[in-house]
């Protein structure tokens, strides 16, 4: 299952995904995996890369991707750092994500059946009958005034262009906080100083980059490709590349 870096820059970039689950499912299915914490950990980096390249057009759309990213980062961290103790809330988030993804997968299957049948064998109601316009039965509630009021009310109820609601804005903010919290969470678990990495990251996008590269570094460590040397706790980490032979062992 060893894949090269080139293979990992997936084709998903060219496809637009409606939401985070479509993307995640595509990534998992491309690798022919089942939905579980292992497969989710494996696709986390590609997921984050994709999200980072999303055009910042619609914040509410991106926010739905970011919410899931936070949980994925947890899963990834846990897989890389077995010593990382998750709170019960965090464990719950992970379990919930897996369940939601399975439910979504089920509905993807359902929607292909719906697509296959939709409009193929239609049951028609009878055609609207032609009216012999002999009757005229008005209603006393029909007047110039009442009709104006009804028309006005109908116009007022027409939704304007969809706008980002307050709740959604709040969500985006709290996600940034969540990412902050997560990076410090990982830091403390590892007892590494992260300042070179995180110090310069100011925006959300930059922070995501930091996390991605941090996770990538841990991944490489586990695979034995690089060796992380940390002289003392709370000092910067240095990395060094190992000889190619040791890299191919795993």
């Amino acid at each position, binding site marked *: 299952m060893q894949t090269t870096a080139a293979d990992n820059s997936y084709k998903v970039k060219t496809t637009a995904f409606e939401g985070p689950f479509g993307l995640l499912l595509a990534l998992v299915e491309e690798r022919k995996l089942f939905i579980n914490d292992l497969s989710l950990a494996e696709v986390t980096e590609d997921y984050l890369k994709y999200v980072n390249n999303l055009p910042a057009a619609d914040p509410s759309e991106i926010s739905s991707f970011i919410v899931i990213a936070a949980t994925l980062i947890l899963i990834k961290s846990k897989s890389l750092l077995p010593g990382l103790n998750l709170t019960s809330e965090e464990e719950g988030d992970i379990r919930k994500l897996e369940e939601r993804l399975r439910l979504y997968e089920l509905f993807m299957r359902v929607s292909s059946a719906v697509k296959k049948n939709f409009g193929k064998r239609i049951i028609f109601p009878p055609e609207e*009958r032609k009216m012999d316009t002999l009757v005229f039965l008005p209603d006393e509630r029909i007047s110039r005034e009442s009709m104006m009021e*009804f*028309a006005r009310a109908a116009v007022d109820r027409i939704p304007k262009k969809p706008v980002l609601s307050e709740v959604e804005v709040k969500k985006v903010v709290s996600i940034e906080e969540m990412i902050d919290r997560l990076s410090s969470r990982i830091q403390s678990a590892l007892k590494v100083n992260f300042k070179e990495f995180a110090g310069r990251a100011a925006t959300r996008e930059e922070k995501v980059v930091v996390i991605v590269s941090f996770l990538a570094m841990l991944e490489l460590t586990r695979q034995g490709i690089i060796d992380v040397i940390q002289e003392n706790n709370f000092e910067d980490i240095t990395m060094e590349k190992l000889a190619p032979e040791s890299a191919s062992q795993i």
Partner: protein
Amino acid sequence: MNENLENKIEAVLFWKGEPLSRKRLGEIVKAGQTEVNEALEKLKEKLAGRGVVLIEKDNDVALGTAPEFSSLIEDLQKEELNRELSKASLETLSIILYKDGASRADIDYIRGVNSSFTLRALSVRGLVERITDPRDSRRYIYRPSFELLSYMGVKSVKELPEYEEIEKAITGAAANLAEMTKEESQATE
């Protein structure tokens, strides 16, 4: 090939709801006159002792309610006509008035819900009439009936209060929403 021709004919007559000539029926179901006549006989047999019967008049045939239920249907008709119009119907009517004729799709966009049943209620009472859209023969336009305008005491919809302002808002919104919904349904994969 045409073994269930009587079912086909039943479906066509049910859908149409008004008399069709045997000749036209043959064209629709792609069968010869003898076949059609035989199938109609079979249909008559199958409908024996049911709520719906085959009505024959000269060369025309139609489905209708069984004669033993005629008084039930008459009562029902009276009751329906005397019922109060629903709020949904009144709102639909107001849109047809201020847009001076609207397609079902226009009305649906503005109301955000499907309006076919409310439109039916309005036509039954002669408040609106359905005509073929002069710009698109594949759809219908509902417009205020002449009787409705005179009942409201206006010679044309333009005399309705604040007509210009509301007409503009409705027409603009309908176009806008039609556009957005079109985008939505076309965004296939």
